[in-house]
């Protein structure tokens, strides 16, 4: 069974553009048609009046000539000079006389003949000729005949077709212009929406300090106010959550300190039975883990609350790695690799934060991944990469992204410092510093956690 595919709706821009175009087309078409009809009516009317006037004058001339005794009909017709393109027809005693040899008198005058026969002047249009002609019939009762004048409306036809072309062209131009105006208008209308979208994206990316500015536009004010209120609410929510985590771990710090302090007394005691001593050792190890988890929770709470506590200063890369190794209690001898230029690079970071993040990676390698192999420093243009490599089984490709999530466990095993937060702290710290962190497979087995940080004062 196939589901009906949802029809993709046309976008706002397309819709508005189309609406403007159609609107412009309709308006220009109506106007053009009106103009055409009015002009045509006027021109036809004028043509008919001219033709009638001419026909009257010519008919009077013909009548007068015919009344002159002895005049031949053909001479009479030849003596009048009809306007160019006009044909004169004369019906006398049932016989047709014409000024043109090929004029088919009866056909041309079909429409007006009955009226003329009744003794009235008649006018009609005929399509027998091309272009159409106006036929004027004048009865000549004095000579018992009918006078007809057929005038081709060539000039009128040309004028009208020129006018039609002009009007069509302007209709098309107006339509296109309408579409363009529509496009521009919709772009103008969508601009604030795009700004809102951009701001929303920044908020989604974690920058909850983003706010919109209405720029004094009263129409945008409600949208901007609503958006800012929404972000305020989101920010407050995030900060409250972050504060909660921080507050909880903060409250636990004093009791944990009491435990650590008291336990140190027990550890120092020499008169413990082996069973008691191993119990004390167990407590000590677990307390150490608990402390790390507590610190991780506090750190993540603070990172969530924003990087406002960041206090960046330039630090040498080699220095950074040495401190991180020391913080993770790993001897530095032979662990640090990289060419001299790369090691001499400087990064601008909040030292305690980044040291903690790198120490997390080092500790991760030592505790969970068969031991740290080395920390390799690679200098690239504008950035420096720190590769924390281990001798463990490596991280399966499908887990490599997931290990950076909170409380993630790789292959059913805990990762990080045991709190499940270690690698997410690393990621958040590095991202806050404008860097990236990811996991690769090390050539020859094992995992390779790569921290890439922007470097400063590049000499490369």
């Amino acid at each position, binding site marked *: 069974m196939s589901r009906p595919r949802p029809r993709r709706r046309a976008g706002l821009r397309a819709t508005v553009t189309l609406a403007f175009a159609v609107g412009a087309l309709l308006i220009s078409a109506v106007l053009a048609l009106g103009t055409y009809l009015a002009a045509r009516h006027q021109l036809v009317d004028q043509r008919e009046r001219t033709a009638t006037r001419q026909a009257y004058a010519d008919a009077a001339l013909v009548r007068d000539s015919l009344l002159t005794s002895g005049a031949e009909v053909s001479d009479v017709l030849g003596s009048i000079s009809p306007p160019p393109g006009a044909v004169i027809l004369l019906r006398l005693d049932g016989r047709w006389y014409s000024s043109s040899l090929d004029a088919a008198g009866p056909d041309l005058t079909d429409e007006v003949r009955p009226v003329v026969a009744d003794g009235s002047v008649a006018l009609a249009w005929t399509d027998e000729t091309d272009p159409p002609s106006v036929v004027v019939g004048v009865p000549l009762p004095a000579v018992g005949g009918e006078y007809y004048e057929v005038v081709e409306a060539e000039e009128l036809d040309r004028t009208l077709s020129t006018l039609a072309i002009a009007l069509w062209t302007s209709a098309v131009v107006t339509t296109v212009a309408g579409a363009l105006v529509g496009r521009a208008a919709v772009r103008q209308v969508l601009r604030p929406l795009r700004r809102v979208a951009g701001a929303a994206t920044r908020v989604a990316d974690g920058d909850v300090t983003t706010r919109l500015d209405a720029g004094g536009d009263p129409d945008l004010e409600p949208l901007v106010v609503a958006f800012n209120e929404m972000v305020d609410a989101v920010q407050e929510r995030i900060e409250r959550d972050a504060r909660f985590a921080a507050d909880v771990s903060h409250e636990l710090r004093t009791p944990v300190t009491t435990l650590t302090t008291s336990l140190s007394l027990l550890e120092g005691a020499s008169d413990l039975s082996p069973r008691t001593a191993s119990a004390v050792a167990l407590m000590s190890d677990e307390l150490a883990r608990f402390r790390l988890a507590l610190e991780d929770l506090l750190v993540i709470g603070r990172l969530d609350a924003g990087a406002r506590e960041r206090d960046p200063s330039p630090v040498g890369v080699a220095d950074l790695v040495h401190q991180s190794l*020391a913080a993770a209690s790993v001897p530095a001898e032979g662990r640090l690799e990289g060419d001299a230029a790369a090691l001499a690079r400087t990064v601008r970071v909040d030292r305690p934060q980044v040291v903690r993040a790198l120490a997390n990676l080092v500790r991760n390698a030592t505790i969970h991944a068969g031991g740290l192999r080395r920390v390799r420093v690679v200098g690239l243009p504008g950035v420096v990469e720190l590769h924390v490599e281990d001798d463990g089984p490596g991280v399966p490709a499908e887990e490599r992204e997931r290990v950076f999530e909170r409380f993630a466990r790789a292959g059913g095993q805990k990762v990080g410092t045991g709190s499940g937060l270690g690698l997410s702290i690393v990621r958040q710290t590095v991202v806050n510093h404008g860097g990236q962190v990811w996991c690769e497979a090390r050539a020859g087995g094992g995992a390779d956690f790569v921290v890439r940080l922007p470097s400063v004062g590049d000499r490369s």
Partner: protein
Amino acid sequence: MTRLLVLEDDVGLRRSLRLVLEDAGYDVDEASRAEEALEVVAARAPDLILVDLVLGGMDGFSFIQRVRPTTEAPIVVVSARDGVQDVVAALEAGADDYVTKPFEVPELKARLKALLRRPAMAGSERSPDADLEVVDPASGLVLDRGAALLTRAGAEVHLTHTEYRLLCVLLDHAGRVLSREALLEHVWDHSVHGDERLVDVHVRRLRKKIEPEPSSPTVLVTVRGLGYRLDVR
């Protein structure tokens, strides 16, 4: 016997600190409130004071401010608060070092030991005059290492132990730049990842006492990006 005062409002931590510190050979007094601690300081003149910042009644910052003029003893803050502002505020108030909860006991002991170390005295075979070192001839600032006394035109300038030790270290390397790390190691015995704000705040405090114009120092100068230098002319 070296006498310590522990000002901490959490009973459990106060007791366990007492146990550990007594184990390390110190004589320990306890106080749970700042007002009480002020009396103990006056009555017993402890050699070092441990202070929590969050207390009922007067808080740790105010306590440090109140007690600082009355004693040269090092003051160590032991607090769960580790925000930049808190650390700096406590040091500005007059604390000598800062330990964040939860701490490792050996580390706390090492810090206390470093702060309680007596400043190196001049050799006894040298004549008293040889102990006198001119710090700033312009203002008549003279350090007498034999008597551990700083005088300006004959009048004593009070220094805390830590300030005195910092001045001695700077004077030993007069004219040379000392990095913040080096100062941390010489004055506080801190290992690699010490807090450099400790140095900055103490330098500021020392300047207030030895510089004629602390905001534009001429004796204890900052060397941008490298550290500090004492210029003796």
